């Protein structure tokens, strides 16, 4: 059976300083913000349509945007209060995304309409999850119910991503430590409704306590297995993880199902187990807050839409001037241009980095050392893609398979000449897409 799958060809990756100093910080809560800013669309796929307007009153869990197609997701209010305005929020890619500003009334009343979902079949499960607003919580934000739906390809393995390979971030680790039962129940729930026979939890071996705890609770479970992985970034990249835990490769341009797998983040399955019991939609996230600029780093359970500036104020402000504020980790996270940006469904960390924590190397000539190629987890040659892109060689870019790039950042990290290779990969992919459209 397994010989129908490609063998994974995984490159070196990189060894980063772990910097996981918040790993022993238990999840805490913070005062409710005065207002939240919730974009209607957080996911990859068709944008959601707003179902609230200015002046509407909402409860915690009230739907504020509705999915418009199968690959789309609902969005819910994280607070009780009043929609004070609908604005266009500047997104990191330069686009504008409609978002609701909701002023909190401090009561945090849950929406009275919320009831546990009735699920008896896989179809029920998929549509229930679609109404929960759940999207991949690891960062990419693909609507979860789409992954749970029946596929043409046979799927025999559920892969749980608990690698958490980005430096600084410990929120998934805290989920495992504090919600171990929910994680396991969530996995069992997914196995039950999808009919997939076994699950493997891929986790980096820099989290021995979590591995021990999971193994203890699983108690030799025949269907769920923990697979410790070497601590090498990016073990948690979907394709790399599938390769490591199943020995199969996702073909170029394919999906995890093409390798017989469904991949879910550990926090995603924990949410699922809570959701099937209560029907309560996704309105809050466990966030790692770190970086040497912030007074009180730690892990916090925060309502979606909590703005970064107010978060800093409620955490005792800045002890150093923040040079760069990131949503996500330092390898793939997005640098914010304003403190008015909110926490999203896909956010797992907010890093307030001071100048000394951010590397800026001037861009020099490539010395052809090949460190980018050794680091590339999907075995591309950024050194040659860089040259081909600069020379506008479309055919060469195709030959070099730049479309396979997972944008993990290893090539830029490794480059001694400070070349922005990962950005070049993204630009090269965009260039190929543009050329493809014209034809």
């Amino acid at each position, binding site marked *: 059976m397994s010989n129908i799958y*490609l063998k*994974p*060809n*995984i490159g070196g990756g*990189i060894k*980063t300083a772990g910097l996981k100093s918040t790993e022993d910080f238990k999840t805490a809560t913070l005062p409710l913000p005065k207002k939240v800013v919730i974009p209607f669309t957080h996911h990859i796929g068709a944008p959601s349509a707003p179902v609230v307007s200015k002046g509407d009153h909402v409860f915690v869990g009230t739907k504020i945007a509705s999915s418009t197609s199968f690959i789309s997701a609902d969005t819910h209010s994280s607070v009780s209060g009043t929609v004070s305005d609908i604005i266009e929020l500047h997104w990191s890619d330069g686009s504008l995304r409609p978002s609701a500003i909701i002023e909190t009334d401090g009561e945090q009343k849950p929406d009275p309409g919320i009831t546990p979902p009735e699920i008896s079949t896989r179809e029920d499960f998929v549509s229930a999850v679609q109404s929960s607003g759940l999207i991949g919580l690891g960062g990419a934000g693909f609507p979860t119910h789409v992954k749970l739906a029946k596929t043409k390809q046979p799927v025999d393995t559920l892969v749980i991503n608990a690698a958490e390979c980005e*430096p600084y971030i410990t929120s998934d680790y805290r989920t495992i430590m504090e919600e171990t039962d929910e994680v396991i129940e969530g996995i069992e729930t997914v196995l039950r409704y999808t009919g997939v026979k076994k699950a493997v939890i891929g986790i980096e071996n820099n989290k021995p306590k979590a591995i021990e705890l999971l193994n203890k609770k699983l108690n030799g479970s025949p269907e769920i297995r923990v697979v410790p992985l070497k601590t090498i970034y990016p073990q948690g990249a979907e*394709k790399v993880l599938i390769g490591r835990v199943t020995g199969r*490769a*996702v073909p*170029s*341009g*394919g999906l995890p199902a093409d390798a017989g797998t469904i991949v879910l983040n550990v926090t995603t399955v924990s949410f699922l187990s809570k959701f099937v019991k209560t029907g309560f939609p996704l309105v809050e996230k466990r966030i790692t807050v770190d970086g040497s600029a912030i007074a009180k780093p730690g892990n916090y359970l925060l309502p979606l839409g909590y703005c970064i*500036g107010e978060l800093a104020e409620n955490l005792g402000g800045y002890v150093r*001037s*923040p*040079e*760069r*504020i990131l949503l996500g980790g*330092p*390898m*793939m*996270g997005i*640098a*914010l*241009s304003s*403190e008015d940006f909110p926490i999203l469904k896909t956010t797992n960390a907010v890093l307030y*980095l001071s100048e000394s924590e*951010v*590397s*800026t*190397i001037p861009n*020099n*000539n*490539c*010395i*052809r*050392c*090949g*460190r980018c*190629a050794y680091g590339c987890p*999907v*075995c*591309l*040659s950024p050194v*040659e893609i860089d040259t081909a892109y600069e020379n506008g060689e479309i055919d060469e870019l*195709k*030959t070099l*398979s*730049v479309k*396979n790039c997972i944008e993990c*950042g290893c090539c*830029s*990290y*490794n480059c*001694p*000449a*400070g070349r922005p290779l*990962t950005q070049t990969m*993204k630009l090269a992919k965009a260039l190929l897409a543009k050329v493809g459209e014209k034809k």
Partner: protein
Amino acid sequence: MTKLLSVAPAPHIRSKKTTNLIMLDVIIALLPVVVASGILFGLNALVLIAVSVAGCVLSEYLWCRLMKKPQCVQDLSAVVTGILIALNVPASLPIWQVLFGDVVAIIIVKQLFGGIGYNFVNPALAARVVMGLSFPASMTSYTYPAGTLEGMSGATPLSSIDALSNATPEAATHLGKYADLFSLFIGRHGGVLGETCALAILIGGIYLIIRGIIKPIIPLSFLATTFLLHYAFGSIAPLHAILSGGILLGAVFMATDYTTSPYTDKGKLVFGVGCGILTAVIRTYTNTHEGVTYSILIMNLLVPYINKLTRKKPYGGAAK
């Protein structure tokens, strides 16, 4: 908040290993060889090295200045080239001749093709060839460390071995008398500044490998191939062959130059074996002394093709 946030594409952290730190590590790795040349050949050697470094750095500085290009001497690559050129000349070379080599390496071989990363052959080796052709007498009048055995003036161990093996079939049995392995290892024999002391070169090479500056693939495959071929050809005793001439210096410091060697692991193996074959063949079947130099330069030219043929297969297969 008055200070604006900086915005840049990910990743926001980078490895500390920058181009100039890599070059600094190469300079550190060359220090044992520099010190050994000072001990073996005297003050003259150190003067040549200092002049050569100054010549390269000045050439690079002036070029960037006059051509109104961003200044690049701070990347330290000109220092490395300067040291390597000096290590490739005999201690008795007139100073103006080494300066000539510096200008050839930096201006013609490196900067005219676009500066660091764009030279298609190793600048120091290209300079060695140009100097060898321009000043054939002074480039081959090897001086000898104090205390070297008599009867060897005017020849490196390789050429005396050559002469012997051409003359008598028992040459191999006499080898010990002319250059015993220990003398070869510590550098007590004739040659250019940097090639005689195997011990110093090995220390430098091990340093480069430990610091992750080079992978051992090229040096090992280069040396192993030459060793085996000399054994097969029966021309020179294999161990003498890899301890004499420029092969160790070439395998550790010249053939591992990033820009002019393949970046793939398989490519490095092909490159090392290629250098090894060419060296053994040139040494055995031609009359030139420059086996190592020419073999590395020829392989330099093949690097783009080797890279192309030895690229890793992408995860998930080639993109459609």
